[in-house]
């Protein structure tokens, strides 16, 4: 078989929101771009985002601005966020949304004809630009159509639509290639035929999304196998804070077949309430001290908030996701769950059937078709589902460059730092756009300054041998079985509530599966063979799981998406620590690194009494880094 070879300035791995936005930016900077994705073009996990994209445009409440958004983001992340990423995100999000509109996106409107914005957990003002409950679809389709528009320009000017930008759909990247310590390209195979592909490029942008498929119950599609996290590790980059996973509080719980499928937070944003099997609206019991002045402690005030947000505190159903997920988990554990191990979420009492179908059309559809439940008349049963990984590739905030690997960039869910220990709903879609653009620009600047970096034959041979391995192995392990075993381990031992003993056990068991995965044998040939594909996905998930379990074992506190039963409180000293994962070729190693210190001008955006809840007295006395 002759090897298929391509040369580009930039290779982008992943065609979700971040990858496509990076592609547009690099292309508009005059570079040639390859977009490589595991699925068909336009199917990436971004389509599943429902609620909206957070940007402080102030269309619904003009008190909103980037500083309020920044504060909300830091609070949501329990101040473990990389402040610079949160700052850039809050400042640039409105421009990224308005830009989408210029590319044809049609968001829902306010009466004045501006982009409408809805309430969401942890956001002080209505802030999420949205299209019903299918905002992610609008975002990805708009980006997809923008790519097509640029290709149409090339067709017109050069007679070749794919001259400067080409989509390689259904291609899996198995290795990022380096020469002389710098990025040289990427290697992989076409899923359709199993034939191998080499991309030579001095810059690679990783935009592969999340890791949900490492867990048993997840809202993620099959693509969320942590490919980018693992590729980056193997290429010598670091992952930061992999212990933080977001369990979305509301996934479907019944029937089993749909367990984990997302129920958008908009249901609560639009007035949905959570009750237990006793009919109790239990969230009032779970307002943590740090949020006590922002959330209503009684039903009357919570209900009034929907009409008058200036004079009432928010309902506790709209607490950040980590709080709500833990609350649901506690209710179920205390025996106050529903028949199928969830709690009730009800929007039917607050909104008319007509309004529900208009504002939450895909939720209505999803429950009606998959669970036989009419949400305009009856409550939904919901429970936590693994939704998002806050941890990810350690990057320079301004350029999205991966720390330690020249030529490597990362944006979107695969990048770490932006969301700290917990992401606010709606911040993901604008994260994709803000840092997708920055990664595209970062890669373009890098290529212009550095030029090509050819791949050696030795590197190609090594990458090719790895792809062939599962076909020559006679070990007899089944990739599907190992994947299920891994999911059981992560679910039971590295899940929403953790303990030191369980994490230690998990680390051993994950290592055992990793050993056995060396013996995976594949049936059939290379042509569109899911068993063969899973062998590579599994290898990535194993590295991610190891990194998560090891980071989680070290962090002896509970914060955001990391809850330790044996260390239940949040600890200000731990807030100063990032956990950095690296790969030594055999094992994932974790080291502690100081969290970048909030500079004075950002420190001063907060009431010092609020910061006292999170920071040590020494930090408060210092008052920021300057």
């Amino acid at each position, binding site marked *: 078989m002759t090897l298929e070879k391509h040369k580009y300035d930039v290779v982008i791995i992943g065609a979700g929101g971040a990858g496509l936005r990076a592609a547009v930016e690099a292309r508009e900077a005059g570079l040639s771009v390859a977009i490589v994705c595991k*699925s*068909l*073009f*336009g*199917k990436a*996990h971004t*389509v*599943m985002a429902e609620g909206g994209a957070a940007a402080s*445009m102030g269309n619904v409440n003009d008190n909103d601005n980037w500083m309020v958004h920044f504060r909300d983001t830091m609070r949501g992340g329990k101040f473990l966020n990389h402040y610079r990423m949160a700052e850039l995100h809050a400042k640039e999000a409105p*421009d990224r949304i308005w*830009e989408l*509109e*210029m*590319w*044809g996106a*049609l*968001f829902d*409107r306010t009466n004045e*004809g501006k982009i*409408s914005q809805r309430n969401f957990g942890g956001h002080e003002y209505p802030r999420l630009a949205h*299209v019903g409950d299918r905002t992610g*679809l609008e975002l990805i*389709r708009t980006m997809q*159509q*923008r790519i*097509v*528009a640029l*290709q*149409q320009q090339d067709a017109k000017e050069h007679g070749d*639509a794919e001259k400067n930008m080409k989509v390689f759909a259904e291609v899996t990247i198995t290795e990022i290639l380096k020469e002389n310590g710098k990025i040289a390209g990427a290697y992989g195979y076409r899923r*359709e035929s199993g034939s191998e592909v080499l991309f030579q490029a001095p810059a690679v942008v990783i935009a592969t999304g999340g890791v949900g498929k490492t867990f048993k119950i997840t809202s993620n*599609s*099959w*693509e969320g196998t942590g490919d980018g996290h693992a590729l980056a590790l193997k290429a010598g980059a670091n992952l930061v804070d992999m212990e933080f996973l977001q369990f979305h509080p509301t996934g479907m719980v*019944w*029937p*089993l*077949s*749909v367990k984990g*499928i*997302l129920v958008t937070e908009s249901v609560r944003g639009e007035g949905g309430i959570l009750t237990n099997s006793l009919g109790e609206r239990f969230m009032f019991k779970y307002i943590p001290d740090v949020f006590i002045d922002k959330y209503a402690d009684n039903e009357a005030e919570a209900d009034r908030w929907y009409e008058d947000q200036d004079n009432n505190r928010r309902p506790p159903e709209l607490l950040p996701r980590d709080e709500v997920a833990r609350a649901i988990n506690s209710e179920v554990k205390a025996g106050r769950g529903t028949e199928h191990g969830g709690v009730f979420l009800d929007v039917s009492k607050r909104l008319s059937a007509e309004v529900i179908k208009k504002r939450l059309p*895909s939720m209505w559809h*999803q429950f009606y*078709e*998959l669970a036989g439940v009419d949400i305009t008349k009856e409550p939904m049963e919901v429970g936590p589902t693994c939704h998002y990984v806050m941890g990810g590739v350690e990057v320079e905030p301004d350029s999205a460059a991966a720390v330690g690997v020249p030529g490597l960039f990362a944006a979107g869910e695969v990048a770490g730092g932006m969301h700290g220990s917990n992401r606010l709903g709606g911040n993901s879609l604008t994260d994709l756009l803000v840092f997708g653009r920055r990664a595209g620009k970062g890669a373009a600047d890098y290529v212009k300054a550095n030029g090509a970096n050819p791949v050696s034959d030795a590197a190609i041979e090594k990458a090719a041998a790895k792809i062939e391995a599962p076909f020559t192995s006679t070990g007899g392990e*089944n*990739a*599907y*079985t190992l994947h*299920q075993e891994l999911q059981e381990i992560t679910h039971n031992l590295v899940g929403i509530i953790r303990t030191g003993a369980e994490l230690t056990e998990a680390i051993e068991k994950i290592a055992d599966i990793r050993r056995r995965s060396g013996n995976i044998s*594949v*049936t*059939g*040939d290379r*042509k*569109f*063979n*899911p*068993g*063969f594909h899973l062998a590579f996905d599994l290898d990535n998930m194993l590295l991610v799981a190891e990194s998560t379990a090891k980071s989680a074992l070290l962090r002896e506190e509970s914060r955001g998406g990391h809850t330790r039963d044996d260390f239940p409180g949040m600890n200000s000293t731990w807030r100063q620590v990032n956990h950095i994962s690296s790969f030594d070729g055999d094992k994932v190693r974790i080291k502690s690194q100081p969290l970048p210190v909030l500079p004075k001008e950002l420190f001063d955006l907060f009431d010092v009494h609020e910061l006292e809840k999170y920071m040590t007295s020494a930090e408060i006395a210092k008052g920021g880094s300057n």
Partner: protein
Amino acid sequence: MARTLKLRIWRGDDKTGGLQDVTVEANHGEVVLDIIHRVQATQMGDLAVRWNCKAGKCGSCSMEINGKPRLACMTQVASYPEDEVITITPLRAFPVIKDLVTDVSFNYKKAMEIPAVVMPEGMKPGEPRMQQVDVERSQEFRKCIECFLCQNTCHVIRDHEENKKSFSGPRFFIRIAELDMHPLDMLRNRKKTAQEEHGLGFCNITKCCTEVCPEHIKITDNAIIPMKERVADEKYDPVRWLGSKIRRREEVL
């Protein structure tokens, strides 16, 4: 709640293939895609199928189930009688790659042929003002998840490969309609090109596309028929014809 299910799954590639009988367990509430995954994990490790979200949002798992174009993730096993054998085959309108996976590149080529949105000159980001009622018409079409079931079922191309060259299919009629009804789009003659370049005239409004749309988009009533009517108006209405001539004369003068 478990039941034993008899399936016939089409296996093969672009050259050879046929239906294979499979017996597999099914649990309460499961959809056809769950069953395919169980077959894959236990009996046919290399059974090829496309899927992503398993929640009816991405449009990847399009196939034909008992001859009907459907999303496997949204098709309840319980919707078939206990004793019925469920036959699963790939989309018929597109070339098979392997098993249930087809080559849908036709659709991406057609997408490339529709000019993108053209914004009013000088309009800056943040400036657009549109009313909800005005965006809703296009929003209906933007719900499309590109499952291509409408393309697969449309009889203009389902069994007529030769029509593919001059016919873009329902998915792209709603794309054109969406742009045509987009409150800001400045490109004129979208309806005319729908007729002349994308084969709108081939459609004889049997509404098969609307019936299979998992997003319940009223493809025929809200996109195809309004475009057909206005194309007809512009072509045959004598007053409009005269108007266009006069305007042209004025331009000359």
